[in-house]
């Protein structure tokens, strides 16, 4: 384990960014934390988490995939991918680190999504333990430990210092290059105990996911409660777009005037035209669309991924839903634990 003082964190950032682009959570014009490319003068945010998740680094909201040039009866396919440079994301919380695993299970299985894979390969994740979780946090429901967030390197803030520990080969290499002072883990052990204690006091500490998981489809799909749960859903995409694990996208073509560009962009199962096909839309009402989102996270995804839930308890949807309807309310209503 290594350490540096909080005051010297900036010089560590300078060292990291000398070799790779570095992104850290920094406050924007509204005082909200957003991942910002580090440069001298960019200050680390004190907020618990960013409004948008770090999913964007690997799966951006809009992405050009390929281009076509059409001449007569010839269609030429143009590869417009650019070589990905190494980059580092600092300050990722335990929930969002776990979300990468959820995304990996979708994008890195056969057929591998080369766009996503390329960025995962070149990205280094430096996580930070959560000293002050929010009332909206419920990562522990899904077995995630806010005190041990993982990633390539983990950082803990304690007694005026930042403590660094590498978890992977990539992380070890980066950490070795930073020239930090070696130390024991006493302060980190104390911080972990403090976090464990705070997690127990959170309002959602007792929330359990036992009623959900693979094999529960028939039990949950036809429950009458879906109607009331979804009755005031606006059908907007806020929950899906702030979510670190939502992974659905739409693929479209754009006529540039000189050719065609195929791009993809995030889609939302809350939208009325989601997965619309030639025959129409498979989910005609908002009840069905609403149910789809939660069944996917709590039943279908774990069924297909060895029990891993598709929610990581980051709490963004709790904070941002315009009508304050969210996965916790769904779980409590259907799972019967209040």
């Amino acid at each position, binding site marked *: 384990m290594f350490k540096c003082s909080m005051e010297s964190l900036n010089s560590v950032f300078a060292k990291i960014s000398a070799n790779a682009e570095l992104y850290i959570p920094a406050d*924007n*014009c*509204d*005082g*909200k934390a957003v991942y910002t490319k580090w440069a001298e003068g960019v200050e680390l945010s004190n907020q*618990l988490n960013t*409004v*948008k998740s770090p999913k964007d680094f690997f799966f951006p*909201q*809009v992405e050009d995939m390929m281009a076509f040039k059409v001449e007569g009866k010839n269609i030429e396919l143009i590869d417009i991918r650019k070589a990905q440079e190494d980059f580092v994301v600092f300050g990722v919380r335990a929930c969002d680190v776990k979300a990468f695993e959820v995304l990996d299970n979708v994008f890195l299985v056969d057929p591998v999504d080369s766009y996503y894979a390329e960025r995962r390969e070149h990205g280094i994740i430096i996580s930070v333990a959560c000293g*002050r*979780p*929010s*009332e*909206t946090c419920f990562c522990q429901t899904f077995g995630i430990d806010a005190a041990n967030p993982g990633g390539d390197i983990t950082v803990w803030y304690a007694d005026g210092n930042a403590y660094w520990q590498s978890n992977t080969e990539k992380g070890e290499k980066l950490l070795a290059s930073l020239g930090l002072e070696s130390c024991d883990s006493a302060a980190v052990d104390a911080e972990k105990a403090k976090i464990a204690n*705070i997690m127990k*006091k*959170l*309002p*959602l500490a007792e929330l359990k996911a036992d009623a959900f998981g693979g094999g529960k489809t028939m039990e949950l799909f036809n429950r009458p409660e879906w109607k*009331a749960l979804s*009755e*005031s859903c*606006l*059908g*907007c*995409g*806020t929950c*899906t*777009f*702030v979510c670190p694990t939502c992974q659905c996208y*739409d693929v*479209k073509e*754009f006529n540039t005037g000189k050719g065609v560009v195929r*791009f993809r*962009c*995030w*889609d*939302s199962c809350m*939208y*009325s*035209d989601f997965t619309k096909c030639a025959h129409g839309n498979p989910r005609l009402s908002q009840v069905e669309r609403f149910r789809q989102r939660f069944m996917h996270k709590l039943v279908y995804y774990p069924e297909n991924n060895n029990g891993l839930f598709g929610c990581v308890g980051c709490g963004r949807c*709790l904070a*941002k839903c*315009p*009508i*304050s*309807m*969210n996965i*916790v*309310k769904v779980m*409590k209503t259907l799972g019967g634990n209040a």
Partner: protein
Amino acid sequence: MQKITRDVLVEKAVSLLENGTVANVLGWRKGEFDYDITPAVFTDKADIEANFVWNDFCGANFSKYLVQKTRKLEGKILVFLKPCDTYSFNQLLTEHRFDREKVYAVGVSCEGMVDIDKIKAIAGDGISKIVCGEMIEVSTVYSDEVIKIDAKDVLEGRCESCKSKKHVAYDELLGEEGDVIDSNRFDEVAKLEAMTPDERFAFWQEQLSKCIRCNACRDICPACTCENCVFNNPNSGVENKAAANSFEEKMFHIIRAFHVAGRCTDCGECSRVCPQNIPLHLLNRKFIKDMDSFYGEYQAGAEVGSRAPLVNYTTEDVEPCDVFEGGNE
């Protein structure tokens, strides 16, 4: 702090349900914490008594729900409306968006709603309890101390410049009737107008670049009730699920602002729900201010059936050459 208590609203809802005046009650349902209410339809006395909420967090405007609910629900609907909500209510009636006969509207006086983000900025994260009052009492998991915050210091932005405490529509009123207020709501617009075009462009560029196209502003907006929005319609030619560049970031919001111009009542729901805190209401408010100055003061929704200046030609109308200077130096 609200002058009228929850009990008064609960009693009213229960009595109207029990005497058969209404079959449904559109109200605010208790959340997981003390601040996250959800709009809900109540049909049952016990449910109302246990879960109906009326406090400083009841910002949600129910008017737009009436478009859908009057079509779907059996029987009459009781809707609670704050003064600003009644303007949306009237505007929707003007546009024939729901059947007035199916609604029983109860006006509720309002002292302004509070913003949880502003409370958190003072009290911090980890809120375990909030008790509303003139002084809002906030407890967190991090301290035994109860933090007291003056409700007036944490009002929602739209309530700081409230335009009316007067209900312009209701069947019955709970609490005292107020007046239309000579508000300072155009001060923010004046600040934008005082900028140079480049500064103003930079301001909107920065704000709108935050947009994630979740459509929450559109979907909550009582003036946006198209059955199929052009931005969703693949046949419209402008269908757009995500902004690919800064032009598209702006296009959605500017087109939307034009489309609701003259119909927007300035209820402020768009800015309240924006997950990225974009001050979207300023676009609409600029249009309102311009229309006021070009055509004389007009408040959308102040009465049912009024003709908005933009759809009401008169020979006295301002000439385009006079309008042209607006916003330029």
